[in-house]
């Protein structure tokens, strides 16, 4: 299948690559279908490209590749939305925001993207409290082995 996108021109994908977001992503109710586009073999980053609107695409990253202490408690509403019976079936990504310069890139840890890859369903979960920030710097490590850690505030 093919789709003409703003950033990548025409992309080709399999029907099995289509992810349905029954409730879309907050702020973009007009887009219900997405597909993941790889950034590159070595990259932990992906693009979540809309298959409804050519200009809608998000950079996402698996937080586990960058953070050690990010734990999302998936609530029942989220499980229902993506027809998951078990949190183990859910793959979590976070959206990366890149303002004027790439060095200032941040991850949204308060609105993770939850994917049920088996059912090809997705949704964005809104975390209720401010344990995790809306904008966590990618904090590019000075050495490749360093991994920035998110501290969880002890109450």
């Amino acid at each position, binding site marked *: 299948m093919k789709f003409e996108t703003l950033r990548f021109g025409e992309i080709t994908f399999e029907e099995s690559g289509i992810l349905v977001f029954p409730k879309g992503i907050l*702020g973009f109710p007009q887009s219900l279908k997405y597909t993941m586009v790889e950034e590159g073999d070595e990259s932990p980053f992906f693009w979540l490209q809309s298959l409804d609107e050519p200009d809608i695409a998000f950079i996402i990253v698996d937080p586990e590749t960058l953070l050690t202490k990010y734990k999302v408690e998936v609530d029942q509403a989220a499980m229902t939305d993506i027809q998951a019976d078990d949190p183990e079936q859910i793959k979590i990504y976070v959206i990366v*925001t890149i*303002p004027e310069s790439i060095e200032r890139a941040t991850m949204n840890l308060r609105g993770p993207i939850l994917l049920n890859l088996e059912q090809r369903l997705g949704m964005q979960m809104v975390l209720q409290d401010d344990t995790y920030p809306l904008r966590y710097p990618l904090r590019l490590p000075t050495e*490749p082995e360093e*991994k920035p850690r998110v501290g969880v505030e002890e109450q």
Partner: protein
Amino acid sequence: MLVLTRKPNQSIIIGDDVEITIVDIQGDKVKLGVSAPRSIPVYRKEVYEAIQKENIEAARAKVTDLSSITKLYQPGSKKPKDKETE
């Protein structure tokens, strides 16, 4: 918007499944209790709007070349061998 006046301990019911109760009123703060099935998410509006706004900002990125951040995450160093536990 439907505007109703309630006193403490009074409630409103939305549809068949959602009930909102005025638990307490103190000064300019109203404590609300929300009873809804677990399948219905309930948010503070400003949190919901903040996520929405951040998404819109994120979708704005027209940059397609992520190679400058990607090259810092070399395959060998993607994950430390031992995850730190505390």
